[in-house]
């Protein structure tokens, strides 16, 4: 199943400037795993050395924070959109924070 992962501006340098990446996945965790397998440099920005999603990295499935769903096990369906949003600028996924 194909889901779209939106790449926040500061991370696009690691995806060849692509703003979104299509990933095949049944869960959010699989989608992020697929993403970081294809773009290895993303991994250390998104995950700790222990393999957990870093504390300031918020992941949304269609605008819902996955920590209030089933976290990384949250099921995805065809056409879903996953957003990666750092906890800055009141949650805005952009480098022009204040």
């Amino acid at each position, binding site marked *: 199943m194909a889901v779209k992962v939106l790449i926040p501006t500061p991370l696009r340098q690691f995806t060849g400037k692509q703003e979104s990446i299509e990933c095949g996945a049944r869960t959010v965790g699989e989608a992020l795993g697929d993403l970081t397998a294809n773009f290895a440099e993303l991994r250390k*920005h998104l995950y700790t050395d222990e393999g957990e999603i870093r504390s*300031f990295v918020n992941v949304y499935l269609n605008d819902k924070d996955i*920590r209030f769903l089933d976290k990384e096990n949250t099921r995805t369906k065809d056409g879903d959109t996953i957003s990666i949003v750092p906890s*800055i*600028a*009141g949650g*805005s996924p952009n480098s022009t*924070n204040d």
Partner: protein
Amino acid sequence: MYIRAGAGLSEDASALGELTQGRSEQGKGRPERMHTMKKSLWTESLTGTEPIGRSLLGCIGNTALLRLERLGRNYPNAEFHGKAEWLNPGGSVKDRPALEMIRDAERTGRLQPGQTILDATSGNTGIAYAMIAAASGYHVKLCLPASASEERKQILAAYGAELVITPGDEGSDGAIIRAREIIAAEPGKYFYPDQYSNPANWRAHYKTTANEIWEQSGGRLTHFVAGLGTSGTFVGTTRRLKELNPAIRCVSLQPDAAFHGLEGWKHMPSAMVPDIYDATLADASLTVKTEDAYRLVKRAAREEGLLLSPSAAAALDGCFQVAASLQPGEQAVFVTIFPDSGTKYLSERFWDEV
């Protein structure tokens, strides 16, 4: 050209000068000040006509310089201090530049009665605009992305700010573009402070923050350390401190990567660099990892009783990094800026995770 300290202070800031002594934490109010205060109290009680209390905006600045008692004990040659900027009435350091930008625009005629202050911000600057605008009788309109936190939107709305919500996936760029569109449609209606390009931003710190640090430290500081966001705090404070004593080492801090969780900070190599930034000012530039700041937020709360924001803890982490590199026998007196407290970050995951 820089403005001399004491000259051109806004009435808000100069009104503060008189009151600082009264709330001096050292309790060493100068005798003549005490005398003046007693006399004015006496006069008031006689006539009953002078206003009592302080204006809200007069409470901006002159924040306490807090001395760390416990967290820095691994560095016996160093003393650590932070300006508690959450004591500003809007809850953050951003009250200073916001007030200065608004007062500067009034003086130069770019902000007229009846105009609306418009900007794109979901952070502390927006809260400062909203508070100052409410207290000064201006309307304020802020563009912010839907992804901004509910608490922020509620604080802004509580001050009566009009919120223009832009699509979350467009981030702050979408909010900035929307703000520019609104101004382009009705240019005469708005004042757009633009903190990234407005010299009044750094001048606020040149005129107030730096001189407060100098006085509160008795000129003893050896190091000034601060994070870079708009860069106004670092640029303005450093310019003035270097005039007062060129030997003060000024160290700027940045996140360790473009993707980070230090609200208010900018990773200059990858970000849109603010016009007011001057990269030649810093004697050294260091980086802070988000998780290190998070751990220090928790330590500061539990060991020092200080509820710091991630960026405040990151600033302290920068001080510790410099302290770790001191030469044997070198004594250091550090001053940094704590931009805000941890109260707006309580829903972050790091409280449970780091």
